[in-house]
């Protein structure tokens, strides 16, 4: 369970490929852009991957691709101290009140 990362799935049994495609939403494109821009500031793709790999298996399976990305990017920024949990909480509350 620990020895093999949940993301490390090459060769495991799985179902038929569902050839779904979707037009990426604006928020997803912005999440992608944020990750790329923060990469330019030294937040590496490797750190973000580590944070994705650290997601609980159920979350890894159930979250969409960019949902995983935005969580991983947030974790990376928190770890680096670029943002704090308190700042994030304040901001999320502020944004929610606006909507």
């Amino acid at each position: 369970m620990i020895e093999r990362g949940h993301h490390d799935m090459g060769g495991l049994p799985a179902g038929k490929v569902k050839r779904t495609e979707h037009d990426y939403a604006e928020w997803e494109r912005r999440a992608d852009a944020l990750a790329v821009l923060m990469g330019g500031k030294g937040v590496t793709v490797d750190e973000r991957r580590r944070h994705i790999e650290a997601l609980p298996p159920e979350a890894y399976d159930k979250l969409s691709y960019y949902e995983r990305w935005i969580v991983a990017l947030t974790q990376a920024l928190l770890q680096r101290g670029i943002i704090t949990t308190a700042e994030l909480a304040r901001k999320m509350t502020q944004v929610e009140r606006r909507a």
Partner: protein
Amino acid sequence: MPEPRFRPGDTVRVMKAYPLGHVRTPYYIRGHTGVIERICGSFPNPEELAQMRDGLPAQPLYRVRFMQKEVWPGYRGNAADVVEIEIYQHWLEPA
């Protein structure tokens, strides 16, 4: 920067180790034997970059070719089918 240890055509074995941390050597290939297809160059170690360290000195990265019939028990396909994977030098031993 140290010289790459392996050259195209060398037979190598992937370490049969299961360390924690961020690893880019897939589980399914550990312990298997393959042939160096090319040297990709040297790059900062992603295992270290993932831990917010600089990953230097850069490590040689190889593409290694494995016979599918040797990797998967009961593989059905052409006996010459292969899987080719990029593996960092510190995961490889001479075979």
